């Protein structure tokens, strides 16, 4: 069986005793929150929801904002020597992410590992597992049920946890965290499918901030490419990177050279965003996305159309961060609904 019932304390003890593993947990909700290491003074989260969701997404653990790709050194006669970077990282377990953040790894895997894998992400992903948790409280900007997920969905999780009173039900979904699973499984009570579904059912509430189903609107979005609405939608956009840097699935990046001196330096990958005007600006001054309406269109359609066409699921996971933290109240759900003719 792959579902067991244990106490939350057993889980905490198991994670702490794993030794050479880095365990990351959300440190708090909102702007001040981030994902931090589970130190001795930190308690393992017992529940999760909008009230535990940090403004920073967990993507930075495997897809850092700043990562060295290679170091180079040049000789005075034009010789070049290049050393690739070591992208490996200590085994890391992310614990207690709400389903929206958990599902972000499904989207990132699809985007960054398919065909030719992105080397930095691929190496870090190898040593990284996610213990997702069912979400107990929706927030004002949540839209997971509109994008094909739900407060109990297990997409992207290696192990899923359903809090049930003081206990938790633990469901094994992949073999990635089997070391942890073996510790938990020893002496634990197995749980029937029936019991799992009755506990999971508690998390089946409908998130009703925005009444639409994204998959049904894909066709309308495709037709709405040249809609004048994009101009209205992006009119007050200030072209900052909040919506994309805080998005758990946005993964566009820039590659820059940082010279240390004339003859050596490093090549670095940093987060980039389609919202910056220079993102697609070519040296010849030609820029296919010069207007901010075209840039906002790229953001919305990439999430709700292009990724869906290429990988079969929405790139938006419905966490609502881009809506909540947008300084000028640009609402991606509202945009999709208007374009899709729902509203």
């Amino acid at each position, binding site marked *: 069986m792959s579902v067991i019932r244990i106490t939350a304390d057993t889980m905490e003890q198991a994670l702490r005793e794993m030794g050479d593993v880095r365990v990351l947990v959300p440190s708090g909700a909102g702007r*001040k929150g981030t994902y931090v290491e589970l130190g001795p003074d930190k308690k393992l989260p017992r529940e999760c929801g909008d009230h535990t969701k940090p403004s920073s997404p967990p993507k930075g653990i495997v897809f850092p904002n700043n990562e060295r790709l290679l170091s180079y050194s040049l000789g005075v006669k034009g010789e070049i020597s290049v050393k690739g970077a070591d992208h490996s990282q200590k085994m890391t377990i992310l614990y207690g992410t709400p389903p929206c953040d958990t599902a972000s790894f499904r989207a990132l895997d699809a985007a960054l590992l398919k065909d030719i894998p992105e080397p930095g992400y691929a190496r870090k992903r190898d040593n990284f597992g996610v213990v997702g948790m069912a979400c107990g409280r929706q927030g004002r900007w949540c839209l997971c049920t509109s994008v094909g997920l739900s407060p109990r969905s297990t997409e992207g999780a290696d192990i899923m946890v359903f809090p049930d009173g003081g206990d938790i039900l633990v469901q094994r979904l992949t073999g990635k965290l089997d070391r942890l699973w073996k510790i938990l499984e020893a002496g634990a009570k197995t749980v029937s499918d029936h019991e799992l579904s009755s506990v999971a059912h508690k998390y089946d509430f409908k998130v009703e901030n925005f009444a639409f189903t994204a998959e049904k609107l894909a066709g309308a979005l495709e037709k709405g490419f040249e809609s004048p609405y994009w101009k209205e939608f992006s009119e007050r956009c200030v072209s900052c990177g909040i919506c994309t*840097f805080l998005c758990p699935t946005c993964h566009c990046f820039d590659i820059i050279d940082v010279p240390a001196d004339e003859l050596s330096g490093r090549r670095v990958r*940093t987060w980039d965003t389609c919202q910056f005007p220079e993102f697609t600006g070519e040296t010849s001054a030609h820029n296919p996305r010069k207007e901010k309406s075209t840039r906002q269109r790229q953001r919305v359609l990439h999430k709700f159309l292009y990724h869906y066409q290429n990988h079969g699921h929405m790139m938006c996971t419905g966490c609502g961060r881009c809506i909540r933290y947008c*300084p000028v109240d640009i609402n991606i759900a509202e945009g999709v609904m208007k374009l899709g003719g729902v509203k």
Partner: protein
Amino acid sequence: MRDYRAETSALRQLCAGLLEKGTVDVVVAWTEGEDFPRVREMAIWKDRADLVQTITWSPFCTTSTVTYLKKNKAALAGKKIAVVVKDCDFQALNVLLQEYFVKRENMVIIGARCDGLAEADMFPRPQGPDTAMTSDAEGVHLGNESRRWEDFGFTCCLTCSYDHMKPDHTVGEYGRKKSKTEWKHLSRILAQGPEERREHYSAIFEACIRCYACREVCPVCACVECAIDPGERAITPRTPPADKANAPSWASRERHISENAVYLTTRAMHMAGRCVRCGWCERACPVGLPLMDILDLTNDAVGRIYGYETGKDPSAAPFLVSYAESDPDDKGAHQ
């Protein structure tokens, strides 16, 4: 006690009149959004004058109409613009006037007296868009819910004391305003030793994700080409290759403590005589950094050492491109 419903309807009438009489081509104001009481800045053009009925004014207008002017400069160029500004936006507009970014003769300034700003997220929602909005010396009241000014933690608003503006039209009582609390935070930081200050500011530099929201929302960060950018925004098809190849690179886009420090320090430097302490950068920062702690170092120097009042006089020379023979000299270690 101020009733923002009443002030809003007065404002709507005023704006409708300006558009109707043809005094202006466009009104830039806050309008009701989908997510009451959050507001949205919008340009209402003459041909859509019916939209003035969506104009709103309340302490929830935490954004800046001047940023809207800055970001939509091309669309608004050469037009007669009426702009609704709260007190800090007014100062920002004065800074832009000083730098010839906008022309005063093209502007009709509607000053909305602001008693402080309130965060929509602090109130339970959703509430109907007709909910009563009032405020008094204690705080803000939205329907049956009340929050004290201090609850929002908008330090810039709590210490705001602007009282010297002359708008063309006013909303609300345009009397003298006193700050609600005294601003002691910076002096507390400065009273610490260099070691502690380094620690405090290093934590800010380290956590910055370089989304540039602070720069983009800033109403006075109005340069076409920012020194921090790799020189790509000002390129035209006629820019010679040599210019593009030799563009100076002041800061790299690497995100780590050192480059973040370069970015934020440079921004603080360029804000000398520009920062009007509207605090929007701090409110917008998605990782909650106390950015005003950095900018106040600049504001403190500009105000205390040079006695310069930012944004007070639209016809004065900008701070950084002027000098006085009485400016102080470097006193070595005793700065």
